[in-house]
């Protein structure tokens, strides 16, 4: 059974903030909450290497949300930017031009559009080269910064601006969400984890555990998105919680490829999660699309069946 060792109580989470308030991001951004929590472990001695996406607005001249460094690269090559920065720091330290005390952690920040699509080659390259870096994907399951278009992270039956529900496609998105966790895991990096901000102790613990490894440390953060998923910003904690409690967003880690689920939900029916969000409203109104909802439930059940068997 997976157990937290560093973070047992909520009071143990440091109060100091490393992502400063007053950003240009949407109210209720679940991704920002995940980053805020992650930064409590990562600290300020960090260079964030950013890919085009919502978080690009975290550093908008003349402001930045960080006391650490920032480099915006492109949508398709933030991991390669991380490679350049990490290598340069290593070379400068090895040549005595930079004291070791000046070293910083290199952290890629990319959304699901970048991570699942355009930067996949660049990520694969960094994983293959065993680059010593962190990768945080804030996954809001669509191209969010451009106004919620279909991405390969969009789940079946979610409505997006480019996968509307129609007579031909009453359930809207017909594809299943791409399994980026398994794509990453096929590269056997030392550490991969999924996190959700509504489970802060789980999240903090994973960043602490990751720090023990040299090499790629990959994080997939659920980023409940009031703007794109269409719910009230105040409901982000509830939506993020239900994503986990229905089993749709498994909390897990993979150390050198070996997967452990860090939280086993009792699994509420998926309707509880779907009903909260406007992007799934067409599944319930004007008529209930029973088949589509059952399909989602069956996929979740199929995912958890071997996991719960293992636990038992």
């Amino acid at each position, binding site marked *: 059974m997976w157990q937290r060792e560093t973070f047992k109580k909520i009071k143990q989470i440091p109060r100091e903030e490393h992502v400063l308030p007053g950003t240009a991001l949407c109210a209720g951004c679940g991704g920002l909450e995940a980053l805020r929590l992650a930064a409590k472990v990562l600290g300020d001695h960090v260079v964030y290497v950013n890919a085009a996406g919502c978080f690009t607005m975290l550093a*908008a001249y003349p402001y930045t949300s960080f006391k650490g460094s*920032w480099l915006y690269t492109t949508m398709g090559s933030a991991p*390669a930017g991380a490679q*350049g920065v990490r290598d340069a720091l290593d070379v400068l330290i090895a040549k005595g031009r930079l004291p070791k005390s*000046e070293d*910083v952690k290199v952290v890629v920040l990319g959304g699901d559009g970048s991570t699942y699509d355009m930067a996949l080659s660049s990520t694969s390259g960094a994983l293959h080269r065993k680059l010593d870096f962190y990768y945080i994907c804030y996954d809001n399951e669509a191209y969010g910064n451009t106004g919620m278009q279909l991405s390969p992270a969009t789940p079946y039956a979610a409505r997006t601006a480019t996968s509307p529900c129609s007579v031909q496609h009453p359930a809207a998105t017909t594809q299943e969400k791409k399994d980026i966790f398994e794509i990453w895991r096929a590269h056997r990096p030392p550490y991969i984890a999924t996190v959700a901000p509504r489970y802060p102790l789980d999240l903090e613990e994973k960043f602490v555990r990751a720090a023990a490894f040299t090499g790629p440390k990959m994080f997939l953060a659920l980023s409940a998105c009031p703007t794109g998923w269409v719910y009230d910003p105040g409901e982000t904690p509830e939506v993020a919680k239900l994503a986990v409690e229905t089993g749709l967003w498994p909390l897990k880690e993979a150390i050198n490829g070996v997967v452990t689920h860090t939280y086993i939900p009792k699994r509420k029916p998926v309707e509880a999660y779907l009903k909260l969000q406007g992007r799934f409203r067409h599944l319930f109104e004007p008529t209930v699309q029973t088949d589509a909802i059952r399909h989602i439930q069956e996929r979740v059940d199929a995912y958890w069946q071997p996991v719960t068997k293992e636990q038992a």
Partner: protein
Amino acid sequence: MDSQMMTGNLAAAWGARLADVDYIPAFPITPQTEIVEALAKWCERGDLAARFVSMDSEHSMMTAAGAAEVAGARVFTATSSQGLLHAFEVLYSISGWRAPLVLVNVSRALAAPITLESDHNDVLAARDAGFLQIHAETCQEVLDSILMAYRIAEDERVMLPVIVNLDGFTLSFTREPVSLPDPDMVRRFLPPFRPSHLGFTASSPQALGVAVIGGTSYAYFRHQVHLAARNALEVHREAAESFHALFGRRYDLVEGYRLEDADDVLVMTNAGASKGKAAVDAARAQGQRVGLLRLRVVRPWPAEAIRQALRGRRGVAVLDQNLAPGQGGILYQEVAACLYHEVLRPQALCSFIGGLGGQNISAGEFQAIFEQTAEAGVAGTGLGPVLLYSAEEHREMTQLQMLAGGNA
């Protein structure tokens, strides 16, 4: 100093080695590959104290190159053709980051149709990317230009990346005698890279490449890139004088060949200019007063040097080894623009397109260019764009079309 026979590619690798670079992200592409192969070997053997990393694409390669440069390392990389275009958006980022790295481009024509041989549509596509561009004619010039490129790029008045261009095949795979500069003298010419304002460190963080909102700040930063590129004209002059004093070789923004009393002038770039010079010699032997102007630095655009060289000529022909479809020659347009306000501008400015994808330019074609340019000068009427394509080439193409099954 002793000379060694080496290819343009090996000379480029020697340029990086003598510049004592720290970091080389690489990706193979013909005809550039020999450069990164040589550097990989030297890094492995410890001949060069740089980290060599095989990247997953040119797009990633250029991103890593720029990121390492702004982290404070001296960076070298190389590509060609499709690779340069695959990395295209990153070029603009690197100049915007003010990352003074050096990129060698080994010119190769662009698909489609896919080919390996040279023309300049690849490097000239990057003319607005904020990179400075030096186009080399000889293997020696490739090496020397890389050393000059680092000195100019890293100058605080410039702080911009540089492309050093050499022609695929004609220079990349051709051996010429190259004198290797003494490393101690290179260090006098090119001091170690110790930028005061670059780097991501714990004690002095910086945010780079950040978003701007609205045109005011965007325009400000891109204007800065332009003004810095213009500063490079003076910085190049200083570097050229210093290089000449130390190594005895002189490289200016443009090179004039037999221009003194020339009535008509042919304008070319890169290794093809060697053929042009031979054609000038042949025409001179027949009594024609012709010369050649080779554009060496293409960014910043050396407008004043071009005006000085072409002022008062009868006819001027720009031979572009590139094609802007629906327009003509890229360099022709730029030469024409900078002559507009010249009172003693040439009587005629002619445009010829030749040497696409490694296409040969024959002695007869050069002779025809000189004759037509002289006639145009006398008539006071420009010419072109003329697409060079000889009767022999047409016959060859007709045969190929018949083989391909078409009705030629």
